[in-house]
């Protein structure tokens, strides 16, 4: 399969949108594009299984490599393994749900959908890139449109939030770029030239001093995207001001770019440094998990609740990566997928509530179950996934991380694992608090009695995300098997490096 299609289809969709007239056309075009993309993601999955069952053990499948800028040895090198496919599937799911949720966008619909679809080009490109420069290029594509989406269609302190988000993510990008340069100039392909090629760099042994110097740049840079403490403060502001679909994309996919980068670039290419610095990663991740959860406890705005809970949940991703065991890394990737689906569902539910009640403040809501049983059920399901109920993806991901992390016998790491386990109690408390205040209880505002329940597009959007969550929750073995070879490659690489 030609992976470039994954970039081309959203690209074509987004440009086709520019020529659309009226909301109807815009909807049809963007929905069709997303649907085709979803089909493509499934075809990719099927082809991947076929290759693997046929005995193809290459690290990356469906590779293609074109020279882009020969003077600096920059290539358009793409390929996928199970990890990338999982992320691509996630992106396709979240995109289709996001488009359906924005179905009734009225102001400047064309521009809105254009930016939304264009964002996904960046995400897809990022997940299939095997050339660090190309990867960085796609990472940047996914920052600027967010600035516009929040600034134009946002709510609340939108200018401030848009600026904050853009600046902090740009700051992250700068760190990543410095890290990439550092790597690049310390590679040697044998004929004196340097390379950006991920797989080639992985084969070289980058000197430990170089790793020590540049690992923090890459890890923190990518970490900012995935809400690494203390660089997570863009998350609450960004989410609370962003329109629903942008929130879904931001939390569902953008934050995963960071986690993916931390794993695929920082940890994979600089394993010794990752090993040496792992205690710092664990420390920051544990702080993010526990502190994020506590900060969520008393929030009043639903979006702030979900934003802080995202900080906590993304902490699990970093924890899993920092533990450096096969199980924990598999769990980290699962957590990325799970959190992506769950948080998108959560933001979708919040958006549905907001468009009807025009408030996100928990003290103004209450008893919504009576007026809107469907939306309330969606909210509860998202909540249950968030607190890691068996049968949802959250449980599978968290348990895999815990089991993996416990393999690390270092006392500090054990303590971190126990704290992470304990944090699911705090998660339970804030989720039940939100559900109790918003969904259950007596109706606080009499106007909420007559509000309409979910429309077909909202049901479709929520349904597709719930299917994703439950598909992992009930039958996690397929995801485990999908991720297996990819995480094994990474972990073997790390073990080899540490052994030397």
């Amino acid at each position, binding site marked *: 399969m030609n992976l470039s299609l994954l970039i081309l289809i959203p690209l074509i969709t987004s440009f086709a949108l520019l020529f659309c007239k009226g909301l109807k056309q815009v909807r049809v075009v963007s929905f069709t594009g997303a649907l085709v993309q979803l089909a493509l993601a499934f075809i990719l999955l099927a082809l991947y299984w076929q290759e693997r069952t046929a005995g193809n053990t290459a690290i990356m499948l469906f590779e293609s490599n074109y020279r882009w800028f020969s003077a600096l040895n920059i290539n358009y090198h793409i390929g996928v393994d199970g990890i990338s496919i999982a992320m691509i599937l996630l992106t396709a799911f979240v995109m289709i749900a996001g488009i359906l949720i924005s179905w009734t966008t009225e102001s400047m619909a064309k521009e809105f959908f254009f930016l939304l679809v264009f964002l996904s080009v960046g995400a897809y490109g990022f997940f299939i890139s095997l050339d660090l420069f190309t990867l960085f290029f796609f990472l940047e594509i996914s920052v600027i449109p967010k600035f516009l989406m929040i600034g134009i269609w946002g709510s609340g302190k939108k200018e401030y939030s848009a600026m*904050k988000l853009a*600046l*902090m993510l740009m700051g992250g990008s700068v760190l990543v770029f410095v890290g990439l340069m550092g790597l690049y100039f310390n590679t040697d392909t044998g004929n004196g030239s340097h390379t950006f090629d991920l797989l080639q760099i992985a084969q070289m042994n980058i000197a430990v001093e170089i790793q020590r110097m540049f690992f923090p740049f890459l890890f923190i840079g990518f970490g900012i995207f995935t809400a690494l*403490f*203390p*660089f*997570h*403060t863009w998350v*609450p502001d960004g989410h609370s001001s962003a329109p629903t679909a942008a929130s879904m994309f931001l939390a569902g996919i953008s934050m995963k770019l960071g986690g993916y980068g931390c794993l695929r670039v920082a940890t994979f290419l600089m394993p010794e440094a990752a090993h040496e610095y792992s205690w710092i990663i664990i420390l920051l991740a544990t702080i993010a998990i526990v*502190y994020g959860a*506590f*900060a*969520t*406890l*008393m*929030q009043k705005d639903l979006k702030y609740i979900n934003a*802080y809970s995202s900080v906590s949940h993304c902490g699990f991703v970093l924890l899993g990566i920092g533990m450096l065991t*096969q*199980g924990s890394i598999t769990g980290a990737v699962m957590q990325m997928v799970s959190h992506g689906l769950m948080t998108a569902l959560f933001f979708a539910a919040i958006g549905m509530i907001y468009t009807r009640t025009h408030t996100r403040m928990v003290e103004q809501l209450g*008893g919504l*179950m*009576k007026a809107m*049983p469907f939306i309330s059920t969606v909210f509860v399901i998202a909540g*249950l996934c968030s*607190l890691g*109920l*068996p*049968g949802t993806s959250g*449980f*599978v991901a968290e*348990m*895999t991380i*815990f*089991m*993996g992390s*416990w*393999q690390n016998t270092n006392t500090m790491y054990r303590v971190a*694992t*126990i704290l992470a*386990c*304990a944090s*699911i*109690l705090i998660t*339970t*408390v804030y989720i*039940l*608090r939100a559900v*109790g205040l918003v*969904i*259950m*209880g*007596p*109706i606080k505002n009499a106007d909420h009695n007559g509000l309409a329940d979910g429309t077909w597009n909202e049901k479709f959007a929520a349904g597709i995300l719930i299917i994703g969550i439950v598909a992992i929750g009930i*039958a*996690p*073995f397929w995801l*485990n098997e999908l991720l297996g070879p990819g995480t094994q490659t990474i972990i073997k690489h790390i073990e080899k490096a540490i052994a030397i």
Partner: protein
Amino acid sequence: MPTPAYIALIPLLPLAGFFILGLFGRKYFKASSGIVATGLLLISTVLSLYVGYHYFFVDGKPDGVYQPIVALEYTWLQFSPKVSIDMSIVLDPISVMMIIVVSFVSLMVHIFSLGYMKGEERFAVYYAFLSLFTFSMLGLVLSGNIFQIYIFWELVGVSSYLLIGYYFNKPAAVAASKKAFIVTRLADIGFLIGILILAFHAETLDFSTLIGKLTSPSPELTSLTTTSFMGISFLTWGLTLVFMGGAGKSAMFPLHIWLPDAMEGPTPVSALIHAATMVVAGVYLVARIFPIFAISGPAALEVVMYTGAFSSLLAAIIACTQTDIKRVLAYSTMSQIGYMMFALGVSGYGGENGLGYTASMFHLFTHAFFKSLLFLCAGAVIHLVHSNEMKDMGGLRKFMPITHVSFLIACLAIAGIPPFSGFFSKEEILLAAYQSSMPVYIVGLFTSGLTAFYMFRLYFSIFWNKESQLHQPYNEGTLSMKIPLIVLAIATVSTGFVPFSTLVTPDGKAIESHVDIVFSIAPVSLALAGILFAAFLYKKENQKPVKIASSLGGLYHAVHKKFYIDEIYLFITKKIIFNLIGRPAAWVDRNIVDGLMNLLATFTGRTAELIKGIQSGKIQNYTLYFFGGVVGLVFIFIYLW
């Protein structure tokens, strides 16, 4: 042996019910949802009985010893080459006994609810949740893997949460549902860490392998007993933490606070979940890995014993002062589960030593029937008087004869009066305690007297005492509400005669059962004393109880307030966690952490503001800077180099 597919149907049929009613119930089964769920469960129950018959009497013991049968094993999630969650169904005496109890009691509750919940707006939702619970509970008892049991453990927790909060617009119900879920989740974290510890050292999650490895000398056992943390071996840690999960679900002190509040749910739910099935899951969990406790972890087993004994006494004392009839029953449940726990705690593994284990399972079995009967009767009473408070009741025996007789039978059973079922199981428990631990025996004996007292206090207050304000004629309830009462009353009378010691023992070998008449004099006479005392105080309306209460003063008040344990928890959560951690954390994040980021931005902005004047675009200024620079450099070169 019935083919495994049949056995799988036992939990899967209620699951199907959940999906059918959850997805389409609101639209298509508005009135018929009760029938759909009950019908599906009826098939499950018949299958359970069939499997039970086959296991116990046909092919469970190929050579005189009951063997576990593992069916339908498949790998659900592979953590590492050795450790994986393998979903499987395990049939052994306790799991077979449990599927019969769960499906049977659940069926009774389903039937009872047909009448009790009739006309509810969310009738279909109610049955969907009830089906989800039944599925989870059946899955829990059939689990062959410790992680599998944890999965279903959480699922029963959430179904309990959903059902307690069924009346979602009642603030008390919302608060109770949250409390139940959070407290049990706290306990589950212990369970989870316990699993992590055991699984890491034993390198397996499978029950039979785990028990095999940890009950005979093996490198895994050595690694668990030789490594320690804070002077306590990892084995004891692991087992105690797993027990913590069990204590949370089974409402053992100090994790019991959720159970009385859980009575906010519909009464049939209390009968099923918070009396007969889910709350005994903790006992079941300890019984499931009992060989490890008994053979390798006596220290952890002691924790089980003392927790059980203490909880049973504490709950019985509190029950004497409560006025809400469902709360009295809730504390009595806690007290009876305490019995089951300490019975496990005093038990040994092989042969005659296993009496405590057998007694515990026996009591679990009989308790399920008489306690669900008590709750369903209470439900019928509440249905009639529309109140949970004793003061609104009295003299109801004329209005509801069937309920009255059933309730009396159940009270006699729980008080331990022969020949009702509770007598036999309690007798075995006390005997087992007598043989191994005197203090526990005395606690058990004393508690059994208290039990008789508070149960008959309840009985007399509801059915005798003052004359009722109600007017004849009154219809006692629909047929569907009466049938379960009658069936359960019959079960309460008859289950005591089940020869449990030949069926359920720790090692599968039958043991001699002995009901010793001399031994039973003490508990039975204590129970009779309790009953008489209750009759003296509560049979006729009088001021004696009030006088006694006021003469006890502060002591009575402390007991009535449940020893202020709830208040302590509230203080910790509201004052400490919410106000001293939650709010400050949010504030710190907004003002300090984010403040630093903003400060950085402001600093950048100000600096730019300051130095932007330098780039003024005026050639003269640039020339000035240039020459200034040259002079400076010259200065440095000449004087400082």
